[in-house]
């Protein structure tokens, strides 16, 4: 709603929008990520930065579901958990190398996507949100009560990404960074593909899309499964980073934080969601000096940001409309 007067105010592409249009910005962001350990490489900093990178992966995965396809998922941590547990169980109980668990994780999370998505994707908006919320809790509670998942204390002794010994945090950070960068790139590609276009049609108007021959149920399922796989792979990284996982890591709060990153950054916009994820994961750490007040300040900052910039930090359309509008005169 606010987008229209906002655009009318703006005469042409400003420096900011022109900067946002720059295609090399993604590489610049990756470069920042690559250089960061040279600036600060304390174990604490490496830990925080690795968590941020994994969080980016989660947010990009949820962005496929919420941003591209417009399906409100309040239980995204379920897929994160399925990925982390599948990988952790295979690595500890069956002593698989962690990397070898990746295909199994993809299959398990895709299956979880089908099981959760199958009944829920026939529902719309609010109903879907409530049911996904329920499923998120179910997965956590199952993990909490099954013996094989270690109950409330979870699984520990998960090997590192490249072997039994936990690798140097800097090495792990770089590995995570590269994996997540590839995942972000793939998600962005997917968003621009024919499937991505179908997602946007479904998001904008499901009935019109259906009337024009888009198989909406299958399309939504594809978004759900893709999101699930991204979430699951983030779970593998998470398990490798911490070497121990427990149900406490996969609460509703986690789902809500990932959703917050997507909304804050700008739904459907890859650079926006990456920034949103970095902000959401780093802000509480930056605010650590405020001790007990930090989550209070965190909350206030989020509210202020949503009031000042409801479309997100880096909204999806700003880039395309600016460019197509500029071009429509020439073509």
């Amino acid at each position, binding site marked *: 709603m606010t987008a229209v007067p906002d655009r009318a105010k703006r005469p042409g592409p400003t420096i900011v929008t022109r900067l946002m249009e720059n295609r090399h910005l993604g590489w610049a962001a990756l470069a920042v990520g690559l250089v960061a350990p040279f600036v600060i490489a304390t174990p604490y900093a490496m830990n925080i930065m690795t968590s941020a990178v994994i969080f980016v992966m989660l947010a990009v995965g949820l962005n496929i579901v919420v941003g591209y396809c417009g399906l409100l998922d309040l239980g995204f941590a379920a897929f994160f958990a399925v990925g982390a547990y599948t990988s952790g169980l295979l690595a500890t109980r069956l002593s698989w190398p962690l990397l070898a668990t990746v295909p199994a994780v993809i299959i398990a999370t895709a299956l979880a996507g089908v099981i959760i998505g199958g009944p829920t994707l026939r529902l719309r908006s609010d109903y879907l949100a409530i049911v996904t919320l329920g499923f998120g809790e179910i997965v956590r509670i199952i993990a909490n009560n099954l013996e094989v998942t270690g109950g409330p204390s979870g699984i520990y002794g998960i090997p590192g990404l490249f072997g039994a010994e936990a690798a140097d945090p800097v090495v792990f950070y770089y590995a995570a960074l590269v994996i997540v960068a590839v995942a972000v790139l793939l998600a962005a590609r997917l968003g621009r593909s*024919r499937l991505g*276009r*179908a997602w*946007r*049609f479904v998001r*904008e*108007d499901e*009935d*019109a*899309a*259906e*009337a*024009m*021959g*888009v*198989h909406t149920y299958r399309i939504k399922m594809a978004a759900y499964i893709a999101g699930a796989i991204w979430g699951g792979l983030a779970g593998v990284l998470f398990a490798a980073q911490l070497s121990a996982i427990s149900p406490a890591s996969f609460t509703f709060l986690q789902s809500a934080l990932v959703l917050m990153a997507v909304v804050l950054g700008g739904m459907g916009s890859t650079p926006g969601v990456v920034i949103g994820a970095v902000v959401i994961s780093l802000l509480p750490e930056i605010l650590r000096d405020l001790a007990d007040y930090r989550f209070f300040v965190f909350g206030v900052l989020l509210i202020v940001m949503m009031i000042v910039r409801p479309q997100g930090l880096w909204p999806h*359309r700003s880039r*395309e*409309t600016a460019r*197509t*509008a500029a*071009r*429509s005169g020439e*073509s």
Partner: protein
Amino acid sequence: MLELTDLKVNYGGVTALRGLSLTVREGETVALLGNNGAGKTTTLSAISGLVRLAGGDIKYQGESVAGEPPPAIVARGLVHVPEGRRIFSTLTVHENLLLGGYLVRDGKELARRLERVYELLPRLAERRGQEGGTLSGGEQQMLAIGRALVAGPKLLMLDEPSMGLAPLVVAAVMEVIHDISAEGTAVLLVEQNARAALEIAQRGYVIENGRCTLEGPAAELSADPRVVEAYLGKV
């Protein structure tokens, strides 16, 4: 080309169609007239596979298509322009048209069809990069029709294309529909604006309470006192 026999549709406990039959012949424009709630929109939704039939059959080119999912029906060339246009207001005109070509996998063919739509509807070409929501009502209707044309319809079903448009714009929209039918596409036109619809149609049906109560050539219908009384008003 298209034959509906004894079509029945229920919404929960409410019966929308109670045995509706009609035919559309190759290349013909057929008007579907009737009051609110008569079952006009339901008829189109039934053909498109958007609602489930409680009875009756839909035959397209001799084959039953009843019960097929919407994508299969669109692929057969039965394309529906829904009521209220339903364009994507936050996507550009060009992106909107791309939805129509969703089932067209051949890139060259798609480009050719888009080009043809831009030729037929030059206003859309001018506004190619503009968001759908910034278009006027008439342009939005043109966009909805253009989107359907990209799908390559053999039978185009239009639901109330004149809704909420100024008389001059209605004339322009009807002109476009006339052009489309002149190129050989059959048209099934649902309209409240009976006068405008009967001007471009060859035949018409009047629907009441989920049944066809009158049918005949457009000229005959416009002269029929019952139609004049109920839908055209006395001049």
